[in-house]
């Protein structure tokens, strides 16, 4: 299956992705409605996009006492059936990444559903930090990032020698 791979090394925390997601969820740009979340830590100049990884062994899915969380057969996304969700919030507690959000308006949990296979966050990511890729490619992408960082470090160390 394909997932949204995040590359903090390319993210600039512009938050286009958050707005695009919020818009899809709510028709507005309130960041709180977004399922992808970009944290920016000024001290370290670190940008960290966080979004559901649709874990192979999804704990939220296993734990849901309403059987409202399931895997979409088409996209492989872990999705919440809002008509089944009772709003018990067990999944909020279950996700170790904080990727499930509670919609107080509707009283149900909500999370990334990969937009049915064309994730809007990726379409809005102008830095290329988000990529919708085959889960198997992930290791390659990570290697690419590490290699590039090493190369840059080398250049940097030349810079300060």
């Amino acid at each position, binding site marked *: 299956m394909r997932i949204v791979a995040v590359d903090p090394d390319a993210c600039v925390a512009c938050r286009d992705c958050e707005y695009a997601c919020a818009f899809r969820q709510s028709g507005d740009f309130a960041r709180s409605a977004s399922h992808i979340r970009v944290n920016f830590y000024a001290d370290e100049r670190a940008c960290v996009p966080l979004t559901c990884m649709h874990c192979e062994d999804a704990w939220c899915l296993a734990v849901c006492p*309403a059987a409202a969380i399931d895997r979409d057969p088409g996209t492989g996304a872990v999705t919440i059936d809002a008509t089944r969700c009772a709003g018990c919030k067990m999944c909020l507690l279950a996700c170790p990444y*904080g990727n499930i959000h509670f919609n*107080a308006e509707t009283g149900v949990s909500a999370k990334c559903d990969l937009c049915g296979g064309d994730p809007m966050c990726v379409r809005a990511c102008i830095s290329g930090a988000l990529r919708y890729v085959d889960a198997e490619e992930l290791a390659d992408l990570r290697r690419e990032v590490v290699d590039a960082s090493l190369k840059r470090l080398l250049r940097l160390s030349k810079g300060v020698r």
Partner: protein
Amino acid sequence: MHVVIVGNGAAALSALESFRGHDRDSRVTLVSGEQGPAYSRVLLPYYLRRRLSRDGLFIRRADDYARLGAATEFGVRAEGVDPARRVLELADGRRLGFDRLLIATGSSPMRPPIPGLDGAGVHTLWTLDDAVRLDSVFREGARLVVLGSGFVALQAAWAARQRGLQVSVIELLDQILPRVLDPAAAQILSERLHACDVEVRTGTRAESVETDRGGRVRVSTSGGDRLPADAVIVATGARPNDQLLPECLEPDRPGIPVADTMETVVSGVYAAGDVTRGPTARGGPREIHALWPTAVEQGRVAGANLAGAGRSYGGSLSMNVTEMFDLTVASLGQFVEDEGDDVFEEHDRGGIRYMKIVTRAGVPLGAIAMGAPEGAVLLGRLRPFVRHRRALPDLPAFLAREDLDGRLAHRSAAKERTSCASLQ
């Protein structure tokens, strides 16, 4: 190989699925004392609150069992196990041979020794039948007395208030949710109950319950009052349904003790869920964690091991989240401090009314958060640290990181309700 699973709840279902992940071929039979495909106990209060229909309580369809290749014996209680012959004895007299057995019989509500609890007006909230019965008792204007103030008790009370009943809660100890919340959290919740016109009597013992011929009830309390009511709900705790195989019990201790593999002392017989006393994440003596997530986790391990996968359980970590009177109450691990523990406490952070994290030597042991649902998300983020005993030296920084841009405040301030919005 024939695998028999007794139970049709969280642990049994999770075990069945996990078993099938390892073994597609062996014969499986699932036996349950209740009728029909599985429903979820956790959802019963939502049904009473009319948040869900009766249909919405069911978490499996009949064909799900067939899809998982399990024969079902619904509506038949198991009465005993003959471990030597490897036979399960059913209430209808049949005997079911097994190679491996899983006991996932859950627990039942405790009946405290109060005279009159067998009267017609006295209820529990544990099974679908209970809930359906209560649904007809929940008439607007009716009076309800709830004995106990645990999660089930208060969820029942909230549902009743939402349905327009007059509700009194009687608690023996001097705070609500004793052993479940710390006093500060209990105080916040008490205030909320009060604001919602729920009468709370702590430090009060129910001495007796009388049901008159018309079905009306009177609860006599240690304070000398006689509370008239249309119904009483007893919700003073639960005890494991552990009598199927007395051989595996320890004397005078409830719950079937299990090893990390979820196997009981009887080889080939496993147990999971509310019925077990199992290993905990923080080590130490085995405990009963009668919680849904624990049942799921244990079921997974048991299911895998029924198929011979050789899985080991990392131990249970209690985690709980409930909404009561529009307050989300989430807790995790050990949130009442022991000697030598450090406590980090915060009030009114965004929509989170109260948050407390207990640490020891920089390692978070547990936490509690009340108020906005985001508290549960925060606790979820903490969970891996608690479970894997990972140090989190700078807790304030961690929390600040989780809530950098005031997203929490932003989201919750708008949504936080100060009164009993759900009652209006």
